[in-house]
């Protein structure tokens, strides 16, 4: 995750520079220092992110209005000063109920969503926050990091190519060396007078000699038959097995980004795996838990998507918004929804019964044991063959989890005496009985 480190590093360096610059500018131009104007945008940013960012963005409306330059805007348009802002931020509900005209106006404009009270913010804190909202966004920093990252990415690519190229050159050299060696050996042989066997006209062609040798023909054909039987068997056995199946989904949804990089637990989305037969595909309201706030991926993520996977991630999020009927500009649902038709990947035939809760909650098997390295999959595919042999093998090899399971205490004791083992496998508990999986 070196991208992140880069980005943080740059922003840290920048903010250090900013503080440095500020301390200088303030101490030198002491006459400019007034109680209000000395807001520190760096501290303001952290305060803003901690307290206000839940509802406000700088340049985009969210739960509340966009706050870029809010102080100036309110002063110019409404004639409201810092004192009003202090009151509003510390206790907007109080200001509204006191009958303040503008307070009531915005409150109603924003569908009477209540802004939290922040009595704990000091005058200085509010100055800092407003200074942050007034500071232009550090655009050059973003561009710089993007360039740096691109360079970094390209470096990785180049070094791989260099290695491959070097290998190819090496092989070429080897081949040439061999040819040269052969030539010199031939020349030596000629010099010593040993006849070099070139085309011999009188000899039987190889295939005729082969056909005349009955034994050789027999052995070869047996070999050939066995070989093709092996392949035919292999081919027939994989009929109906969808291992590696990787359909194109209607939204390019990446498990690598969600479960891998951002570490979201599988059960956050596949929440019915805990309690039911099915793991379930999350409904779109679960996506919106996060994507109300995440309308665009970070610049680094977007670059990675375009360079490495050829996908425009932001466009994919727009597909999600379209399906769930979310209007970003008004931050509300339009009510026009269209289902996302995810293509089902894992699918046992109807004759077999499989239950997630039994394996995930009771047995405590990790999802990855059966579904493979999901947190690295950009596109989901079927990792396991899902054949009967696969199920049975695991039942033979895996011990039953009896800890804290009163239901199993007695039967486990009896059966382990019967089989003379310490730990029962799932098979010994009855995991091989046809009726358990076929009904």
């Amino acid at each position: 995750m070196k991208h992140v480190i880069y980005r943080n590093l740059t922003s840290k360096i920048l903010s250090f520079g900013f503080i440095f610059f500020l301390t200088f500018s303030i101490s030198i131009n002491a006459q400019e220092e007034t109680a209000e104007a000395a807001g520190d945008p760096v501290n303001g940013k952290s305060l803003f992110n901690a307290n206000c960012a839940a509802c406000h963005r700088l340049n985009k409306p969210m739960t509340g209005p966009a706050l870029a330059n809010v102080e100036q805007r309110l002063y110019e348009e409404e004639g409201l000063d810092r004192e009003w802002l202090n009151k509003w931020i510390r206790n907007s509900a109080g200001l509204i109920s006191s009958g303040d005209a503008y307070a009531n106006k915005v409150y109603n404009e924003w569908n009477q969503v209540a802004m939290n009270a922040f009595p704990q913010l000091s005058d200085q804190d509010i100055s800092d926050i407003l200074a942050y909202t007034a500071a232009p966004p550090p655009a050059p920093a973003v561009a710089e990091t993007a360039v740096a990252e691109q360079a970094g990415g390209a470096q990785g690519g180049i070094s791989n190519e260099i290695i491959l190229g070097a290998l190819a050159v090496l092989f070429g050299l080897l081949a040439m060396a061999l040819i040269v060696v052969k030539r010199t050996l031939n020349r030596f042989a000629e010099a010593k007078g040993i006849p070099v066997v070139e085309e011999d006209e009188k000899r039987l062609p190889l295939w005729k000699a082969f056909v005349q040798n009955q034994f050789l023909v027999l052995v070869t054909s047996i070999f050939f038959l066995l070989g093709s039987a092996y392949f035919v068997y292999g081919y027939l056995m994989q009929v109906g097995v969808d291992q590696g199946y990787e359909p194109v989904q209607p939204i390019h949804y990446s498990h690598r980004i969600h479960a891998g990089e951002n570490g979201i637990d599988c059960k956050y989305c596949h929440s019915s795996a805990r309690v039911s037969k099915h793991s379930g595909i999350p409904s779109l309201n679960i996506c919106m838990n996060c994507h109300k706030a995440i309308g665009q991926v970070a610049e680094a993520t977007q670059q990675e998507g375009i360079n490495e996977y050829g996908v425009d991630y932001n466009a994919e999020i727009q597909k999600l918004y379209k399906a769930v009927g979310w209007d970003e500009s008004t931050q509300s649902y339009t009510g026009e929804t269209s289902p996302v038709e995810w293509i089902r990947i894992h699918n046992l035939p109807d004759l077999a019964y499989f239950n997630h809760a039994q394996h995930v909650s009771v047995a405590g098997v990790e999802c990855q044991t059966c579904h493979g390295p999901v947190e690295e999959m950009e596109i989901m595919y079927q990792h396991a063959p899902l054949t009967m042999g696969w199920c049975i093998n695991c039942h033979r090899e895996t011990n039953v989890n009896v800890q804290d399971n009163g239901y199993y205490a007695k039967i486990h004791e009896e059966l382990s005496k019967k089989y003379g083992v310490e730990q029962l496998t799932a098979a010994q508990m009855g995991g091989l009985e046809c009726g358990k999986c076929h009904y």
Partner: protein
Amino acid sequence: MKTFLKYILALLVVFSLSSCNNKTSRNYQYMPNMYEPVSYEAYQESDAFANGIEAQLPAEGTIPRGGFMPYEYEDTNEGYEAAKANLVSPMDSLQVDYERGKELYDVYCGICHGTKGAGQGTLVKREKILGVPSYADAGRAITTGSIYHVIYYGKNTMGSYANQLNEEERWQVVAYVEKLKAELEK
């Protein structure tokens, strides 16, 4: 020349065989009669409903079987205040299971609120979601009732968790959040 043609033919055969092995479509099946369900399967498309989706919301006014308690507070500012002031947990101290609460909390809440509840989850640290408050935030002064209300309906950018957690699980999470809050305030 002939051998050359043979090579090409062999290559063609191999190529056509391997191109059947397409990863984006399903494999062949033998006689799949018993593979395909007669009954409805989960998430299947169905023409029984107007929009073709089998997963439907319950009809309005219906109540699921078994120990269901309707939630009476409304999803408004007044409902929030009322829940904050009046709603208390139906669980007694013996029913509270902090271990299960922690398990559920770490799956559903920890990703934003952090495992300690200080508002520093993975997504916040990676600056994907901002403005997640600490449970000890004095300006919010959350209570048993307000936590439950927020899990049930969500609040502003935080979504509802009522469909991932059932009633009993929600109260377990509430108990665990209160424990975290107490630890943060220490």
